[in-house]
C-alpha cells in the first residue's frame, strides 16, 4: 500500500505517495521529477544524491522516502534564489569547478551544509567534509578552491550586511 508523505521541499509544502521500500532519491527523481539530485551508486558511497534533511546532510539513496514524513528537505534546485545564484554556484562557475557536472549538485549541497555550520573552513576541513562526494573529472583542486572562495564571499557579504545594520 502506498504511503502518504507530507514534507517541505525547498520551502514548499510537498506531498507525495510512495511505496515503503522507495528511497527518498527515487521519489525526488521519479515521482517529483527533481532530477537535479543524481544517482551515482545508490549505496551511499558517491554523494551525488546529497540533500539536506532537517538540517542534516544525507545521501538521499540511503533514506527511505517514508522517513521524510514532516521533514524539511533541501535539494540543489532550491539553492538559487530565483535568478540569483547562491555564492557557491557562482564560485563553481567562476573557478571552473565542474567538468562533466554530474557530481556538481551533490558537491554544492554538501558544501552549503558545511558553510552553514562553519563559515570559515580550512582547506583541510573542506577536503574532509566533501570526502563523501566523488568527482572523477577535476582532481578536486578547483572544487576546493571554489568552496573556499564562496566562503570568503559569504563572510564578506555577511559582514557588510552586519556593518550596514549597525549604522544608526
Amino acid at each position, binding site marked *: 500500500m502506498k504511503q502518504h508523505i507530507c514534507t517541505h521541499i525547498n520551502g514548499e509544502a510537498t506531498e507525495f505517495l510512495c511505496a515503503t521500500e522507495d528511497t527518498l532519491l527515487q521519489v525526488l527523481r521519479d515521482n517529483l521529477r527533481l532530477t537535479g539530485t543524481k544517482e*551515482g551508486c545508490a*549505496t551511499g558511497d558517491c554523494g551525488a544524491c546529497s540533500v539536506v534533511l532537517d538540517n542534516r546532510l544525507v545521501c538521499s539513496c540511503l533514506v527511505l522516502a517514508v522517513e521524510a514524513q514532516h521533514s524539511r528537505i533541501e535539494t540543489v534546485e532550491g539553492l538559487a534564489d530565483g535568478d540569483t545564484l547562491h555564492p557557491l554556484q557562482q564560485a563553481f562557475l567562476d573557478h571552473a569547478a565542474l*567538468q562533466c557536472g554530474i557530481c556538481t549538485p551533490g558537491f554544492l549541497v554538501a558544501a552549503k551544509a558545511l558553510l552553514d555550520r562553519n563559515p570559515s573552513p580550512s582547506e583541510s576541513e573542506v577536503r*574532509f567534509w566533501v570526502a563523501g562526494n566523488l568527482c572523477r573529472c577535476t582532481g*578536486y583542486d578547483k572544487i576546493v578552491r571554489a568552496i573556499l572562495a564562496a566562503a570568503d564571499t559569504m563572510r564578506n557579504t555577511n559582514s557588510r550586511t552586519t556593518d550596514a545594520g549597525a549604522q544608526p
Partner: protein
Amino acid sequence: MSRTPENWRSVGTRPVRPDGIDKVTGRAVFSADFNLPDALHGAVLRSPFAHARILRLDTSRAMALEGVKAIVTARDLPLIPADQATTDGQPPDFRDMSANILARDKVLYEGHAIAAIAAVDAQTAEHALTLVDVEYEVLPHVIDVQQAMEPDAPVLHDSLVTQGITPAPSHPSNIASRHEQVHGDVERGFAQADIILTEEFTTQPVHQGYIEPHACMARVASDGQTDVWCSSQGQFMVRAYCARLLDMPLSQIRVTPLEIGGGFGGKTTVYLEPLAILLARRSGRPVKMQMSRAEVFRATGPASGSYISMKIGALKDGTLVAAQGILCYQAGAFPGSPVRLGCMTAFAPYDIANVKMIGYDVVVNRPKSAAYRAPGAPMASFAAESLLDMLALRLDMDPIDLRIRNAARPGTRAAYGISFKEIGYLETLQAAKAHPHYSAPLARNQGRGVASGFWFNIGGQSSAALTLNEDGTVMVTTANPDIGGSRASMALMAAEVLEIDVSRVRPEIADTSSIAYSDLTGGSRVTFAVGMAVTQAASELLAKLRERAAMLWDTAVDEVTWRDGCAHACVDGKDVQLSLASLAAQAGKTGGPIAAHVSLNAQGAGPGFGTHICDVEVDPDTGRVTVLRYTAVQDVGKAVHPAYVEGQLQGGAAQGIGWALNEAYLYDDNGVQLNPGFLDYRMPVASDLPMIDTVLVEVPNPRHPFGVRGVGEVPIIPPLGAVANAVSRATNARHADLPMSPPVVLKAIQRAARKRR
C-alpha cells in the same frame, strides 16, 4: 583572422561556460534524467559465473509475470557473419560486441548479460529476472593475464588462434594476437651499453569510474523509426553501432545526446542501447534502462591490467642506447586490448636508436576492456619511466637531466615510426626543473618522483554549423558531447574569428539527424579537430558577411574588411560600417539567411607531452602513502580556455594517482568480483589529495589555426611512474607492482631491508 595571437580577445580567456548555469542548478539533463510518459523499465539478467556454457535458457516463466512486456536474448540479435564482423579489419569487432551485449552459448565473465526484460516498473522487471531459467555448465576460468597465457589455461574462445605468428598456431589459445615493433637493432644497442637494467612490472585493471552510470531511453515507431536518448561519447557512434548490431539502416535511427556524466573512454561503445531498442520494438512502448553501479563495475570498462617485462641499456653519461619490452595486456573477455598503443608510447618521449617491443593481447574471464584515457599508455609508461628512474639513481644523475639528455626533439624519429615535427617535450622538462616544487626540501620518509608521458592525439572527421540569428547572435552547432567544457572552447574560437564577444555565441550539440557525421569525443580530438571545423565555418561565415556588406554598399567584396565584429569599407570617400546585427537584419535583402557548414577530416593533431613531479610521504610502519605535493606540466599547444585545460591536467593526475595507489578489482576463487562498488573500489577522494599545481607550456601546433593540441589524455600517463618513483625514492626500494597499497608497499620495504642486510 585579422588579429594576431597577442591580440586575441577570446581564445585564452576564462569565461563562464555556456552550459554552466544548467549544471549548477540541477537543470542539465543527463541520461537518467530523461523521461517519457508510458516508458517501461528495462533490466538485464547477468551471469553469476565467470565462465560457463549456457545449456538452457527459458524465459517463459518470466514472460508470464504480470507487467512484463518484452524479453530479449541473444537469439533476438541478428547473426553477424565472420566476414562482416569488422569494417576493413579495423576494430571494433561487431560479432564480439553482439556477443558481449547478450551472451551467445557461453558466458565469459561474471556480469555478462544474458537476457533483457522490459516491465511496467523496476520492481516487476527485477522480479522477472529471477524467473528466467538458466542452466549452466560451469567451466574453469582464468582472470590473471600470465596464467591465461599458459598452455594448459582454460580457453575462452575455441576459434581464437593467435594472429601475428607465422606459421599460425594449430591450437586455439587465449593469446589473441602478437604485435612486434622494431626500431634499429636492439642486440647491437645492448652490446654498446655500459649499464643494462631490467625489471618486471604488473598493473591491475582499473575502471574509468565515471560517476554517471550508463543509461538510455529508446522509442520505436510502428514504421521502425527509432529514437534513442542517451549519454555517450558520440551520438553517431551509438547510431552506427546500434544499426550494425541490429541490422538497421542508419536513417532509421536518431540518437539525441544527453549530458554525459563522465566517460574517459568508457562510453565509446554501447551496452544498453541495442537492448532498449529491441525491447521498445517488441513492446511498442518506450523503454528506459539504467545500470546500477554494480553493473557498471561488473560489465563495463575497465582499462587492461598488464604484465610487462622491460629492459633498457645506457652509456655511462646517461645516453639511452637500447630499450626492449614484452607487454602482456588483458583484453577482458574479447580480444582488443590497447597493447599495440602501449608498445608505441612507452619510449616515445625519448630519442633511442634501438627499440624492440613485443605485445600480447590476451583474453581473460573479465569484462571486455574499454578505452580509458590514453588507452594502453599509462602502464607501459609506468614501466619505462620506472626504469629511467632506476638509471638516474644508478648514475646518481638528476632524473630530469637524464630525460633532457634523451628527450625527443623536433625532427627525432620516434621508435614507433614517425618523425616528430613541432613538439614541446623538452620545454615541459625545462619548466618542471625550474618549478619551485622541484627544489623544495624533503623530510624523512619523503620522496620525489618525476615521470613523463606521450600521447599521439588525433584529429578525425568533424562537423560544425554556424548560423547567424536574426539579431546578430551566432549559433555554433557541433556533434560532439561536451565532457569537460568543449562548448566553451567552441564558442571562444568562433568568437575569436568573428571578433565578437563570446557572450554573443551560443554553442549547441545536435542529434544525429541535425548535422553531418562526426567521430566520437575521444583521442583528445575535440578542441583540435572540431575546433578546426568551427574555425573554418566561422571563416566561411565571415566571408559571406563581407559579401553581403559589399552588396548593401554596392562595392567590391575586396573593399570590405572585417574588424571588431563589423564590416568596414570606404564608400564614396566615407568610412562606413555594418554590424553583425544589421547584416543579420538585412539578410533577406541580400540573399536570405546567413550560415556556414563545414565538415572535414582534420589532420595534423600535434602530439602531446607532459612531465609530472610528485612528492610522497610513506609511513614506514604501515606502508601507507600520502601524496604531499603534485605538479603537472604539459605542452598544450594553445589553451583556448585555460581553466578547463588545467582541469584536464588535474583530473588526469588524480585518476593516475588512484591507479598508482588504490584502485584494483578484487576477485574470489570463482572469478566473482568482490568489490563492484565505490566503497571497496576506492577512487581518490578530496581528502586523499593535495592541490594539483599545473604549468601550461604552449608550443603552438602549426597545423591548427589557434595552435591547439589535444590535452585530455596525456595527464593520466605520467602519474603512475611519478608516484612509483616517489615511493621508491622515499622507501629506498623499487615498487614495480600497482596499486601500491599499504601491504604491498610494506612488503617491498621489508624485502629491500632484508636485501641490504
